[in-house]
Structures are given as C-alpha cells and as structure tokens.
C-alpha cells in the first residue's frame, strides 16, 4: 500500500481550547485506525500568546511533525504570520475575513467570521469545536465519527455543555457544506487497509505507564515543564495500585524522598527537567554512595538556568552523566520513541535494583510532549527483576554485629541489599565513605576498595542492556552513518530513507545507553562508515564529545546542531546531511 499522509494545523491564542481541539481530533483519528502524530507549540503562559497544534495523519507509523501543512485553521491573526508559510500550494487556509485585510492568500481560502459563526440561540459556540466541524467537512469525515470522542471530553460536564459542543460541531460542518460546497471533502484521507483502533499516547504518559507496570508505586516530584504530565498520570492511577504521587516542596525533597522510599523497598522515582536535575545532583550522589536504587526521569528542555522552559533541547546529556560531584557511576539511558519510553522506563527500575544505583532516563521535550498513535505495547515480554534483594531467612545476628551491606567480596561488586524492617539484617547507610557494614570510614584501603566497588559494578550494563543502540543499519559498509539520541529518531529515519532512495548506503543509530557507554556496539558502525554525522539539539556537541571521549581513536565526526528551541525538520536535516556528503 502506498504511503499517504496529510498535515493539519490549528493556530490560536492560548486558552482558546487549541489543545482540546487537537486531542479530540487526533483521538478520533486513532479510533478510526489512522496513524497520527500531534505536537503542540506553546509559550510558558496560560492565557494569551500564540500557540498551535499540528497533526500528521498517515497510513503508516509517524513519529515526528511534517514541515509542511495541508490544512490550516487560523483562530487568531498571528496564525497568518507564523503558520501560514507552511501551507502547501494545494493547501487550504481557514481564517477570519477581518484578518485578511490587505492580504491575498496564495492558497484556497475559507474566509468566515468567527464571531458570527459562534452566535447561536442563547449561547456562544466554542470556536475550537466549530473548527473541528470545519475540519471534518474539508476532510470529508462524518461528524458522527467524532461525536463519541466529543462525548468523552465533554459528556461529564453535563448535557447542556455536550449539546453546545455538538451544535458547534454541526454548525462548523454545515458552514462549509452551505458556503464552500466545492470544498467538501477537498482532501482525500490516507487510504487504510484493515484499520484497527490505535492508542493515542503522550511520551510522558508512556513513561508513567512504564513505571506503574514495573511495580513503581511511589513518585515524589515537583511540577516542571515538560515533565508534569508524568506526575499527573501517576496521581490519577497510582492510588488504585496502592501507591501515591506526592508533590513535594522542591526537587531536592522530591529526589531525596524517592531515595528514602526506595531504601525502604519501594520502586520509587521522580521526574523533572534541567533546573530540577541541577537541584537533584546532590541527592543523586546519596543514592550512588548508599547504593540505593533510584530512577530519575529528565525531560530535557532549553537551558542553561531557566533557559527555554517550553522549547526543545538536548543539552542535559553531560549533566545527566556528570552533574553529581565526586566519582559517580550512574546508568543513563535514553529512549528514542514513545514505545521505548514505556519499555525503557520499565527497564530503568530493573537496572536500578539490579545495579543498586541511580538510573537517569533522558527524554526530551519532543518525546515527552509529542503525542502519537501507538499500535500496541507488549506486556508479555516484560519481567520484574529485583537483583540481589534479601527478604528473609538471614542467620541470627545481635548487636554489635551488622549485616555486610557493602560486602567487598560480592560477586560483580554488587552486594546483597537488605531492607529496613528485615530481622537480622541491620546495617547502616551513610553519604560518607564507609566500611562494609556502612560505618563511616576514612581508612585509605577501604576508601579505595569501596570506590572501586561502586564504579566497577555498573560496567557490565553495556553487556546486559538489551538494546544499547536503536539500529536501522542495513549496510556492512556505509556512505553515511547518522547518529542521534532521544527524540530525533523519527526525523533521522525519514532523512535516511530519502537518501537511500537516491542510492546512498545510509546507516542510522540512536544511542539508547549513554552511560556506561556502549563502545563495542557503536564502534564497528563508526569504523565502517565513510562519513559520520552526529545530530543533536545543543550548541556544544555533547553527544559527539561523549563518543570521542569513549572511542579512541575516533573517526571524524561531523556535528549537525540545532539549539534555537525548535525541532529538526526533514528538509533542513536532509540539506545538512548532503553538505557533509
């Protein structure tokens, strides 16, 4: 079946219901079996300020935004300035007539008056649902197919609210039917073969679902963009599992509380973005020193300082690995799709318990807030692994004997972990350097041995981590190797595909295990490539530096960097790759 797709966008002022519009529409499309990818652009204010919601509708999996747009709905004048340039020549613009003054759109245009259209007997029809009706008409979608999703969103608000929204949907549809009859079903929707309803999921929701599925029932966190949806999902669904999401006074408390809960036996985690990660640095060191499992989700955004709170970036890589003082050996993993956000979060809890150390899951804004169709998640393949956890049956000990929590003879340098409350397991923990039972120690030999223990134990992760790389690398020798991490996977895939169609041998890998670094897995791709580009969203080429630090001698790496807050689009990335070739 031929790949077909359409791109739809609505722009307006924040607070006008853009998000509901996009979500209802996308969820309806998913229920009809389409593949969709939704991405919202917003500023960090609640009301006012231009915002947009863009949807890519396809008959094949899509995981990034399209740079062009077929149908654009302008709910504010800014849309004409900001978003209209994306319209294709065959596109349609829906706008208020008032905003067209002195402008002559080059595309087919539906000019209306939002004010007039929203007037109804005794009520004002919501602009966003009018836009949904207009959309349905232009795309030839039966409004009856949208009603169940409208009901899901507004039904609980009462019959009156629901009726107003239903009326808005019909009014929008009828407006096109009556005034722009030739534009009814102006676009052909992508052709579907055997359509199956899909899940419509936010990256952050996939993370929270992964955590809950793995048995993590304790989350302590402080709200921050773009991670807050993880808290919001947990607070909704953790209580039914006997758990809790607790909003703390700050990120220091959030991280430390999660460590406390993990020490007591919970699978516990926190989620944050750059500024919070900086605040958590010391606590992460406590988890490292006391060998307590901890999972921290970092949804990267623009830095440094408050940076670009609502914009995309991948500049926390070095901080995720190194921001804690002293010699630390955390595990840092980075999912490159929404599905991997689910699986990797699940796995993060296994790693944290098996290796008894902090695990950072490095996501980014595009991955966190990108919402897309997901065909399925494989529950069956997931397994909980708790590592060397002693639950009972310990030989009797009495004061002053202690359990050797930090046993230096332990296999693989990973010692048995005992939880407080366990009889005959009494041991100590401290952020100070310590001896084998956890008593503070400045003994030089002990210091060296305990430090080596902590650093040595995580090395085997490179051998045991199931997929240290996402690999789309069909060629033994390549003309071009493209390397990325986290949210850039989809756009790189599309670029690779296009270059392959031109006859180039292009291999693509996303690095999913960032620390410890999978040197062996990556090196053979590096050695067998004529040219190598590293694509990342930061100014200092952090991923390329990390590769060079770990792979000596490293072939020449060409960096393609973008750090203006926006994501990579296919055409620009393609052009930059061609420059290197």
């Amino acid at each position: 079946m031929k790949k077909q797709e359409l791109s739809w966008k609505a722009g307006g002022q924040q607070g006008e219901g853009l998000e509901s519009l996009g979500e209802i529409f996308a969820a309806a499309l998913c229920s009809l079996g389409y593949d969709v990818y939704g991405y919202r652009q917003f500023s960090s204010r609640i009301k006012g300020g231009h915002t947009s919601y863009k949807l890519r509708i396809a008959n094949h999996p899509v995981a990034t935004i399209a740079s062009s747009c077929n149908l654009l709905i302008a709910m504010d004048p800014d849309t004409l300035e900001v978003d209209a340039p994306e319209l294709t020549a065959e596109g349609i613009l829906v706008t208020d007539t008032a905003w067209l003054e002195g402008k002559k759109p080059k595309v087919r245009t539906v000019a209306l008056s939002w004010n007039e259209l929203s007037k109804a007997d005794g009520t004002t029809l919501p602009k966003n649902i009018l836009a949904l009706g207009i959309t349905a008409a232009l795309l030839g979608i039966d409004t009856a197919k949208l009603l169940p999703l409208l009901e899901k969103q507004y039904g609980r608000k009462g019959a009156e609210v629901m009726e107003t929204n239903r009326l808005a949907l019909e009014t929008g549809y009828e407006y096109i039917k009556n005034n722009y009859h030739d534009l009814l079903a102006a676009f052909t929707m992508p052709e579907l073969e055997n359509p199956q309803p899909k899940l419509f999921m936010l990256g952050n929701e996939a993370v929270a679902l992964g955590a809950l599925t793995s048995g993590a029932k304790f989350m302590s966190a402080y709200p921050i963009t773009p991670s807050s949806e993880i808290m919001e999902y947990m607070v909704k669904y953790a209580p039914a599992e006997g758990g809790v999401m607790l909003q703390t006074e700050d990120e220091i408390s959030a991280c430390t509380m999660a460590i406390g809960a993990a020490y007591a036996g919970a699978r516990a985690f926190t989620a944050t973005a750059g500024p919070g990660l900086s605040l958590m640095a010391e606590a992460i060191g406590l988890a490292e020193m006391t060998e307590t499992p901890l999972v921290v989700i970092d949804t990267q955004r623009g830095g440094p300082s408050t940076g670009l709170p609502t914009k995309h970036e991948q500049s926390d890589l070095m901080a995720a690995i190194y921001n804690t003082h002293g010699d630390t050996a955390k595990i840092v993993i980075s999912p490159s799709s929404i599905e991997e956000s689910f699986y990797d979060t699940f796995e993060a809890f296994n790693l944290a318990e098996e290796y008894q150390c902090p695990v950072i899951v490095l996501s980014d804004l595009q991955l966190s807030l990108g919402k897309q169709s997901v065909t399925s998640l494989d529950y069956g393949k997931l397994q909980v692994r708790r590592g060397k956890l002693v639950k009972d049956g310990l030989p009797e000990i009495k004061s002053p004997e202690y359990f050797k929590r930090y046993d230096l003879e332990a296999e693989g340098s990973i010692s048995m972990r005992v939880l407080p409350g366990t009889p005959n397991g009494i041991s100590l923990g401290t952020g100070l350097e310590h001896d084998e039972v956890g008593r503070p120690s400045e003994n030089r030999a002990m210091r060296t041995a305990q430090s080596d223990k902590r650093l040595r134990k995580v090395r085997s992760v490179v051998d045991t981590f199931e997929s240290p790389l996402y690999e789309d690398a069909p060629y033994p020798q390549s003309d071009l190797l493209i390397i990325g991490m986290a949210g850039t996977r989809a756009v790189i895939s599309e670029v690779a595909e296009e270059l392959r169609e031109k006859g180039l041998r292009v291999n693509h890998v996303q690095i999913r295990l960032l620390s410890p670094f999978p040197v062996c897995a990556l090196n053979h791709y590096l050695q067998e490539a004529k040219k190598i580009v590293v694509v990342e969203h930061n100014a200092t080429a952090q991923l390329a530096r990390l590769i060079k630090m770990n792979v000596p001698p490293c072939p020449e790496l060409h960096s393609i960097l973008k750090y203006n807050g926006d994501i990579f689009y296919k055409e620009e990335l393609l052009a930059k790759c061609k420059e290197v070739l």
Partner: protein
Amino acid sequence: MSTLASFQNQVKPNWCPGCGDYAVQMALQQAAVKLNLEPHQLALVSGIGCSGRIGGYLYAYGMHTTHGRALPFAQGVKLANPELTVIACGGDGDGFAIGTAHTIHAMRRNVNITYILMDNHVYGLTKGQTSPRSDVGFKTKTTPTGNIETPIAALELALASGATFVAQGFSAQLPQLVDLIVAAVRHEGFSFVNVFSPCVTFNHTNTYEWFREHLSDVKDIAGYDPHDKGAAARHIMEKEGMLTGLLYENDRASYEQASGLAGFNTIKNVEKMPQANFNKLLEGFK
C-alpha cells in the same frame, strides 16, 4: 523483648565529652525499649553535622543522609513501609538553615514520623560558626562582632506550619525527654521534638547552666492545655521559647489517613502490574 543493650552498638561516638547529644542517644534507646520496639523495626534517619552522626550510634537501621534532607528521606521511608517506626534526627543547621523548607512542609504534610532536632545554637562540626538559632550578639568565627540576625523561633514556626505535635526537651532532663519521644512516636502524624543539646566546645553562652536558669516546664503553668493552640502560642512567646514539655498536640488526619494510603498501601510490594489493570489503563488511551 528488647533491652537497652539491644539498641547499643558499641561504637564510640565522635562527640566531645559532655556533649548534649549523648543524652539524646540515651533517650532514644530508652524510648525504643519503652515502645517495645525491636532494633530492626526502627529506622533512624539523620542529617549532617555532629547531630547527624547519631544515625550510626544506635543499633537499628540507620541512614545518615545529606545536609538538611533527613526529613524528605524519612518521609519516603515511612510512606513506603508504614510498619517501620521512623525517627529523623538533625541539628539546628539541618532543620532551620539548609533544610528549613523541608521542616515547614513536613509539618504541613503530617506524615507519621518523629523529628528530633538537636538544638545547640551553633555549628559544631565545622568548628564554631553561627546558626539560625544563635542569639543576637552571639560571637562566632563567622560573626566575630556578634550575630546581627534574629534567631528563628522554632516553636512558633512549628505552630504556624501546622505541626500536629510540638514538644521541647533538654539534654539535662533525661526522663522528661524519654517521655516526650515516646509520646511523639505514638502520635499519629508528624511529631516535632526540639531538644536543647548544649555544645560544650563552641558555645560558651548557651551552656547547661544557662538553659537550667532560663527553662521552665509547662507542667508548672496552671491549667496549661496542650490542645489550645492560642494559649500555647501565647505562653511560648511570653517565655521566648524557653519552655519544656508537650506544648501542643492536635489530631488532624495524618498524610497517610488523608491520602487513603492508611487503608491501602502496597508500595513496598513490588510486582509487575496485573494484566487486567494494565489493559484497563490502555483503554484510557483509546
């Protein structure tokens, strides 16, 4: 049955001879016996400073955390395993400087743990700097001409923050301190016990003698009612905080009760979510 010896671990503390913290250590051990605890049922979480070392000086599960963060850690422990008795300990630097926010919010939150703050009005482990509890005019290495900042009013701050159990003890009054700790642990919710624990090396102003001279017991106040917040606040202010005993208590629902965790808490039972629950969550994405 545990005895005092059950909670002793033969580790020689690094505290100076005469330090008030020895009495806190002893009081904790006696209280643990009175509470019929076994060592493995007690988690002692401490911060940083001389006081923070106490986590390693009792035979129990001890965790010596980072500066100012004993409370967040301790709350995490308790929420994950409500069967444990969780006591957090720290100094006035921990609780009223670097960790003030946690102190206030732990009081608001009301998780069922006990916080023992060893208050000596000075930074001892870093060898004598001012503390947020130092008196105005107090001379230290960092306030050579005398402290010019107003000390934090610990008890008023606790009342204002919604603490449901506020008590104050003194290292030289061991039986009272033991009783206060026992009552604090039995209190359902967050219990705060401020303990004047003199530093004999770096504080030659707020000495044992000085505290004896200035402190009075609420038991000596006719008709003192620890359930009357207004009266408690008035007495505390009148005495400028120099009162010992149980100063205030109320029965506001603990975090566990209010959140529903008290009825259904499976946090420490780690297992893969049952398939039926997983499928139900997936339905939410359709």
